[in-house]
């Protein structure tokens, strides 16, 4: 087990280095490089630009700049926002909670619904329910998240008036219920794609388990269908799903960006778009790296969890 964990940690570190190289390349892609925003300031002369360039260390060889940038990244010094001068990591962490709440709720919704739909589809294969779930999942994957959000706002906020059209809470009312009411619609919208993916994979995983010998044995000894499902099938089918949950992190983060924009949810995605609008490149770069690190951590956690639950993995 220790060897497996060390091995997996090593892989993640290698990926982190590669990811940071791509991030650094994107940073240098900005027109005029990291200096672009100073160049726009009126009254800047070339001499001024050269001085800033030297101050920021931009006259050094690219490889030295990269090493320096990566080292500061590791130490948590991610630069300062152009907009308000606050450290980038502080700005990000101020928005991270809202995104985490949204993504967490969406995951709970999609795992619950997706698992149920997947198992039902697998046990009643080729039924109308199974067919409808398959087609429904494919349609759900084809609808742009933001458009689904717009339609939901139109129906539930503008026509029926049941739910608020945006924001995270009503100013002056900070009750838990108020938060919950604001959370429902964006979380459902964000969960849609995930429900589709989760139910598809759950169906396949269940089908794989359901034909195995131990399930037949359980049936043969007279267990009811329900108990066989609960005791032998669901647990085993959920094992590969842990990996899937890790793999869904980038999709969820991307979906959160769009959902947050439509519902004016004060999370990382909104921050990313606002920062793009202000050409606040340190925050943009910070968020790009932050989201990639989240993805790496998500995959790592999923793999370690699978190894913890499933002894077959650690032994090989």
């Amino acid at each position, binding site marked *: 087990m220790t060897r497996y964990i060390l091995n997996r940690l090593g892989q993640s570190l*290698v*990926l982190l280095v*590669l*990811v940071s*190289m*791509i991030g650094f390349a*994107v940073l240098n*892609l*900005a*027109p005029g490089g990291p200096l672009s925003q100073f160049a726009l300031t009126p009254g800047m002369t070339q001499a001024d630009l050269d001085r800033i360039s030297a101050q920021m260390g931009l006259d050094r060889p690219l490889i030295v700049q990269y090493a320096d940038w990566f080292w500061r990244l590791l130490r948590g010094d991610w630069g300062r926002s152009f907009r308000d001068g606050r450290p980038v990591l502080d700005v990000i962490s101020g928005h991270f909670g809202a995104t985490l709440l949204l993504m967490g709720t969406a995951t709970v919704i999609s795992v619950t619904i997706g698992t149920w739909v997947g198992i039902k589809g697998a046990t009643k294969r080729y039924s109308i329910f199974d067919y409808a779930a398959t*087609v429904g999942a*494919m*349609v759900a*994957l*084809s*609808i*742009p*998240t*933001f*458009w689904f959000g*717009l*339609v939901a*706002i*139109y129906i539930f906020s*503008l026509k029926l008036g049941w739910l608020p059209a945006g924001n995270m809470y009503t100013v002056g009312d900070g009750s838990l219920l108020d938060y919950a009411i604001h959370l429902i619609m964006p979380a459902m919208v964000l969960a849609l794609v995930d429900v589709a993916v989760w139910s598809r994979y759950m169906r396949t995983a269940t089908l794989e388990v359901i034909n195995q010998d131990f399930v037949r044995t359980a049936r043969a000894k007279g267990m009811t269908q329900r108990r066989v499902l609960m005791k032998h099938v669901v647990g085993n089918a959920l094992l590969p799903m842990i990996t899937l949950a890790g793999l869904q992190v*980038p*999709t969820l*983060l*991307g979906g959160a*960006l*769009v959902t947050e*924009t*439509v519902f004016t949810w004060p999370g990382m995605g909104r921050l*990313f*778009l606002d920062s*793009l609008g202000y*050409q606040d490149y340190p925050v*943009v*770069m910070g*968020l*790009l790296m932050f*989201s*990639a690190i989240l*993805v*790496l951590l998500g995959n790592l956690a999923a793999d370690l969890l699978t190894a913890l639950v499933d002894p077959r993995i650690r032994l090989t």
Partner: protein
Amino acid sequence: MSVSATPATRPARSHWWNSRTFRRFARHRLAVLGVVMVVILTLACIVGPYLLPYTDLYIDLRARFSPPLTGYHFLGTDPLGRDLAARLLMAGRISMLVGFAAMVLSTLIGTTIGVVAGYYGGRIGTVLMRFVDSVLSFPSIFLLLALAAFIKPSPIMITVIIAITSWMEVARIVETEVRSLRERDFIVAARMLGLSHRWIMFRELLPNAMGPIIVAATLTVARAILLEAYVSFLGYGIQPPLPSWGNMLNGAQQYLQSAPWLAIVPGVAIALAVTSVNFIGDGLRDALDARSDLN
């Protein structure tokens, strides 16, 4: 050299519409529906604009915010009084073209990297595939938006950056396929004949990996149309006055109460196009799957 190009034992095919693959595809009802929908959408976008009384840029000031089915504006008009049907069809040209072109580009990139990584394996393969993993670690919308904000947005650049952020899946699929084909007898034979690496990779391995590539490419079209819609909706994709399905939705949210058709019409178009392409991809996967071919 050309001796090995056509295996002598290949069974004579009659017509392509009699092939097993085609018959299996034709049995997949949703896939056929998808093909019909895509053909209709494509034809409508090519021919439609010539049949409408308005162009996509004509501003009918007296008819601003007309709901659908008023006068000759059968899908209504936008806040400037431009005909929504004309804009929708012109936007369809751009959105579908961007989707298709991005697919071609990303399939080229993905296939090349996948074949090289799978064929050479070893250190080259590992480095390439770790590179694929690391690009996949960025949520594609974040990467796409960052690139789009840095680069001057034109339809060609948008196509390029969509391709840059969506070739990885193809690369993975091709790598797996090639790695399993590499040890097969016909490749060993090709090597013993002394064929060049390039010949083996692109003339022997690639044709045999075509099935999964075609499926992945089809699904990439759907993905690319969606990605274009996302960036354009957020304001960093195709720039007005050039219409695209995504940027038609860009201003729609503020008129959701007064003019909901502005949001509904382009959204339905995107959903229809993407769903149809996904259905086709699903049908192709069933039809081309080599495993179900054995029985």
